[in-house]
């Protein structure tokens, strides 16, 4: 390890809980979350800002935590998948993903859900096109996206209190073109 003198003391609020930690300057935010705080729901896919598996909310904005240093989070609020809903009460986005079968292997899912959360917070009435564009920083190799789009639209509807009855039966989402 590098000398303690090289370490920085930072304070980060993660999922509402403040943490004071000593970190190496080069430590990535994703490693602070996963290794330092053992919040392993944030995944590492590509390491290069392309896949979005590591997406977390940084003061409410989705960021790719594989390309941020932990020190940049000093004094900021981070939300990870563990802070999205609680064990007993799911966030509408989480509900939407399971109801619309928006996940298969689940590896992209935390990042997708956090991006989706920010999306429907900023735009409570997204069109299908808005959702497809809004999720275009996150890759999924399993689902073909169609059910992810439906999941996000479901969550947006749920936020308004009207829930679509679809449950994987229809194929109403038609795609970009």
């Amino acid at each position: 390890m590098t000398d303690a003198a090289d370490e920085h003391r930072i304070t980060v609020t993660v999922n509402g809980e403040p943490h004071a930690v000593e970190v190496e300057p080069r430590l990535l935010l994703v490693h602070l979350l996963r290794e330092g705080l053992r919040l392993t729901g944030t995944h590492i896919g590509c390491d290069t800002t392309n896949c979005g598996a590591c997406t977390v909310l940084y003061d409410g904005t989705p960021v790719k935590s594989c390309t941020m240093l932990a020190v940049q989070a000093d004094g900021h609020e981070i939300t990870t998948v563990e802070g999205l809903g609680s064990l007993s009460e799911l966030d509408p986005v989480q509900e939407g993903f399971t109801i619309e079968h928006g996940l298969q292997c689940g590896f992209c899912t935390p990042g997708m859900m956090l991006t989706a959360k920010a999306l429907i917070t900023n735009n409570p009435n997204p069109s299908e096109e808005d959702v497809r564009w809004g999720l275009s920083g996150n890759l999924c190799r399993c689902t073909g996206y169609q059910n992810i789009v439906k999941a996000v639209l479901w969550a947006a509807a749920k936020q308004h209190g009207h829930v679509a009855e679809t449950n994987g039966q229809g194929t109403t989402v038609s795609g970009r073109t």
Partner: protein
Amino acid sequence: MSQALDEVKIGGLGSSRQRVEDARFIRGRGNYIDDLKLPGMLHMEILRSPLAHARIISIDTSAAWAIPGVRLVLTGEMAAQRNLAWMPTLSYDTQAVLATDKVRFQGQEVACVVADDPYIAKDACEAIVVEYEPLPVIVNPIQSLAPDAPLIRDDKEGQTDNVCYRWEVGDKQGTDRAFAQADHISRLKLHYPRSHPSPIECCGSVADYNAATGKLTVYMTTQAPHIIRAAVALVAELPEHMIRIVSPDLGGGFGNKVPVYPGYVCSILGSILTGKPVKWIEDNFGNLISTGFGRDMYLDSELALRKDGKILAVRFHADTDQGAFFSDAQPSKFKIGLVHSAFACYDIPVGHITARGAYTNKAPGGVAYRCSFRVTEAMFFQERMIQAAAADLGMDQAQFRRINLRRADDFPARTPFGFLVDSGQYHKCLQLGLDAIGYEDFKREQAQARSRGRRLGIGISTMTEPLGAGNSREYDILGIKMFDSAELRVHPTGKAILRTGAKTQGQGHETTWAQIVSHELGIPADDVIVEEGDTDTAPFGMGTYASRSTPVAGAAVSMVARKVRAKARKLAAHLLEVSEEDIEWELGRFYVRGAARRGVTIQECAMAAYTNMPDGMEPGLENNAYYDPPNLTWPFACYIATVEVDPETGVWDVLRVVAVDDCGVRINPMIVEGQIMGGLAEAYAMANMQFMTYDADGNMIGANYIDYLLPTAWETPGFELHEVVTPCPHHPIGAKGVGECAAVGGPAAFVNAVMNALEDTGVRNIDMPVLPDRVWQAIQTGRDVSGVPPVRQD
């Protein structure tokens, strides 16, 4: 009479039950390999070769050893001392674990470092100094198979050229005769580019060798844990009962997580040498540059045609770029996998195929990337050839298919290459697809648009493919037959645990296997927990790939549940005090024939198995089943895409995609549709953007997601799904494989659509991916565009 159970309500067959897996995944509580942390665990990183072909002159590791926190620096020489510098591949070749003599592809493993944390291990890798002497580089089979090509595998005794195998099948003379009588011969040459399965989670392992007990536990990203255990026993010469392989939640696999990779072996060796658990987490660059790729095949084919459209014969030759080591992860007895399943859905009397594999200076490890061992190449090729032949004859592409597709009463039928196709309603599927897309209307619209200078196109792809290896006669891995297994224990209160030899990677086995138990026993699916992936507890199985889980492991689940039901029937007879012959079964309940009100539930039988069994009966209610399928399963699919090509830029947009899938009986329709949509997206990706290529020096272009393009939600089109159900005649519940159909059959629908839009230009082929510049070039020149990697000219 008691109320009969509603099968869909209890989560049985046909229920779109929500997935059990989701509960942990949506809360960020999955358990993927990188989430595992063992006490005292060290971290490993791999140093890779920057050159594609070079002799290693020297490796100096002293600076790496000097970095505080470094515990081990491992080179090929050290591995060789333990006889582990090379390992056997699943295709009976050898592969270097850590290079000793020379490097044979860019990204090859040269050394590795084990350290206290991954940052230190990475620093230490950079401190290793390797001196190389560059050698001439070969990046495609054309170069590789030329006389006087430099020898890549000089490590192999008796190897004098770069041919890694030759293979042929079919009737050459009969085929030649048929060609001699043809009215017309259509020919097409294609390259199916190299691609990578690229699951978002890369590979990794945590090896934990306990020197006190001699037991080795390896947590690793594998689709086939039992095969790995057998391979480790053979490679590391450890006793098999002292090896435990655990495959945790997998972040996708798509074939990429079948092979044994050097990283796994090094982490095991690292743990043995340091006495600590060693974790290796591959980065995305390492995954793309070194692990199992898909495709990379060169095809040259001819169809012999009668002028009325009947296909008289087919012949083709396939050269495959195998990379530096022949490590195809495929279990068939056929060198080139199931490429000879091509044209199985068409009634063609005779055919002949020849094939060669070539060593090149590229990454090794052809895997069945979301397919059954080169079936993707076969079906792409077939459907491109069909469209070209229809165009050559000036015949409508749907009508040409109608003339040649097998009819519903043709089954069972033997293909000219020896497969037995057993069921299907091909014409019905095709018609459903044509109706859904509005075929005739589209053709009118297309003609009108053309007169206004717009280029619309429609592409069809129809195919049946063999899914679900084995049977054990023709399919094995390392000699182990391709069966699969299930073990079911019903507890006293009627709840149950099921374990299988398969391994889910997102397909939802935890959900669907319980549904099969529910279907067979009437136990609600919610009362059945499913476990896979731990070789200490799961029965021996061959793992999950090539859409084999439902055809094989799923069948085993049915069979074990039936065994359990047979014992429960004896318990029911005992409880009802009648002889077994007088017992009838309805879902979840036995009753006395002629007295339906007198009955006992399966749960009551379970309790009796532990509390009130008849004299002489062994207590308990559990069993296992090993299932050796009599044949492969043969799903059929019809995919149709419409596109608009912009002649100014070469960009093409997808207008609509219609998919008709007949995968037999659907266990969980929601999950089946999810699989189909995932496959369609990959099909679109391959047709439109996704490929990895190499420059003339063997530098891989595509070892990151900037160069290796994967479609996002924005580019990916929407899909319209339809179904036809022809039950599989030999599967216990009539199911067929489905996970890969769309990825296999889909690409040709997109490419055929683009080619259809260019039909009047005289262009017959643009190699995938059909990139805008290739389309533009084709329109400008009126010539075919090849995607073969460049060859150095100096």
